[in-house]
């Protein structure tokens, strides 16, 4: 791994208003992620995992602090620049597979390449490679409705990596899968990190999935902590 982190976040704060209430799901987070690292983010619901992931992926902007991914200073970017950044540098995998239902597996994977104006021949080549990585070459021409949940998620991973992004962001990628399919999906993410030097940041509730990562960080009340929040809660004095 190189010396310079690929993700560098300092003093990140994100605030939402829900009626009269002010919610701060991310409250002063500092985080470094090294290139090729597989990082798992864990924590209870509402601890700010997904919000942190959205900030790293350029889906949202922080209210305070700064975040750099590669050479891109995301906190200084406008919406248009963030769109271009996401298209070129980030691959997303969501909990619900979120494939476009009217497009085949191949066409879904091809979509980000169309956005980047990649030539037809090169699109075909890259899609074939991505399909091979997730072992879905034989299901390329099937619609999402013809695939199992695990297969859909593998197609979603292929779509995330087809543009050869610097970083893959996976938000609870095994949340809707059975144990075996979930294991296969995490295997693929681990392989992408170990063999293809992709930086993978995964939010998960599944300790077995998290165990496959190089590093686990926990979130508790909008802050990164070193220990499992369950242990922290157990140590908190009872009211």
């Amino acid at each position, binding site marked *: 791994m190189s010396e310079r982190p690929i993700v560098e976040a300092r003093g990140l704060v994100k605030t939402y208003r829900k009626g009269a209430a002010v919610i701060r799901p991310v409250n002063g987070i500092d985080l470094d992620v090294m290139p090729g690292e597989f990082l798992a983010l864990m924590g209870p619901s509402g601890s700010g995992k997904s919000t942190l992931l959205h900030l790293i992926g350029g889906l949202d902007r922080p209210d305070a602090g700064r975040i750099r991914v590669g050479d891109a200073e995301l906190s200084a970017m406008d919406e248009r620049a963030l769109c271009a950044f*996401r298209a070129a540098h980030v691959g997303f995998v969501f909990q619900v597979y979120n494939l476009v239902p009217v497009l085949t597996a191949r066409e879904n994977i091809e979509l980000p390449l169309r956005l980047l104006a990649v030539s037809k021949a090169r699109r075909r080549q890259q899609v074939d490679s991505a399909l091979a990585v997730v072992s879905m070459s034989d299901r390329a021409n099937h619609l999402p409705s013809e695939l199992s949940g695990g297969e859909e998620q593998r197609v979603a991973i292929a779509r995330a990596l087809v543009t050869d992004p610097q970083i893959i962001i996976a938000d609870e990628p095994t949340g809707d899968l059975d144990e075996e399919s979930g294991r296969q999906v995490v295997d693929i993410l681990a392989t992408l990190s170990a063999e293809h030097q992709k930086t993978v940041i995964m939010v998960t509730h599944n300790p077995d999935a998290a165990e496959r990562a190089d590093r686990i960080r926990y979130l508790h009340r909008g802050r990164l902590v070193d220990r499992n929040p369950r242990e922290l809660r157990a140590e908190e004095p009872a009211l």
Partner: protein
Amino acid sequence: MILRMLPLVWRNVWRNRRRSVLTLLGVGVAVFVLAALESAVEGMTFPIREVGKQELLTVREAARANVLASRLPATYEDRVAAVPGVRAASGVLSGLAVVGADRVHVFVRGVDPLRYRDVQHLVLDPAAWSAFQADPRAALVGHRLLRRMGWKVGDEVEVEALRLRVRIVGVIPAQGVDLESHMLVRRSYLQVTRDADGQISFVLVSPVDGARPTDVAAAIDTALALAAVPTETTSAGAYAQAVIDDFMGFIEYLKVMGAITVLITLLGAANAIAMSVRERTREIGVLKALGFRPGLVLALVLAESLVLAMMGGALGLGGAALAIGSQAARLAGLMLSFPTVLMAVGASVLVGLAGGLLPALTAANVRTIEALRGIG
């Protein structure tokens, strides 16, 4: 960029087949109705407008506004021809008869061939014109009247109400003169059958080049002011405008109906597209997460709406062309003109763009993370 996304647009159009087909049919019916209404208006006003383009004047009896009822001495033909500013004048004796089981109206004009052609420019087969000049009982028949009555050149036909028995020697084809439902006969013959010896209905006048028709009309009426039968001279344009003005209320009504049809379709299309967008809020969030800019999302939804509306429009316009192109519709006077086609295409584009605009703006402006949660 949008061109690269056309496969996605096309698949989205057919995502919910039943809804798309119903929307498409809705637009198709609206465009059909619009084209049919406009064709009726066009067919109704076209011949009159064409007549209005001619700079001819009509001299009739001042006391009778209807040229069919007007009576002037045949000598007026020469008196009018002598008025300064008049290039040529031709006295016409008119008659109207209702013939056949279908009660077809036949407008008959009794004319002096040479003088009439000097005034009224007619595109005719030279052989037909020669036959008309040669035979006192010859008739030239407008193409629409000929088809409607099932007559042929060479037929001997009878117009009982006017006691005419004539031989058809030629057809007056479609041209910039409203003679489609007319029959031209020799004036001398019609004067005999109508007991109108020495009489005409009106004088058709062609002013000299450069003369203002209104000035020539005033000069004619002044010259005949003290004659036995005072005259009123009007231009063909004024006549055409008066007829169109009479129709205008009805025409406006038809246009309002057409606009309401388009509006209803627009609301229906907007609702269908809005439903389609609402159903895939999360998917729009995914597209934005992949890097689709708001402008591209807007263009995708608008393109989808436009493709649906244009297909509906093509269907409606095709149906209208078939229906209006039929012989029955042509005989009834319907006319699908190029401006009508353009208007129908424009209406389809309007329905597509306006109907898709609000859903497209909603899709473009929804926050990515809210869309990913399915809120929007």
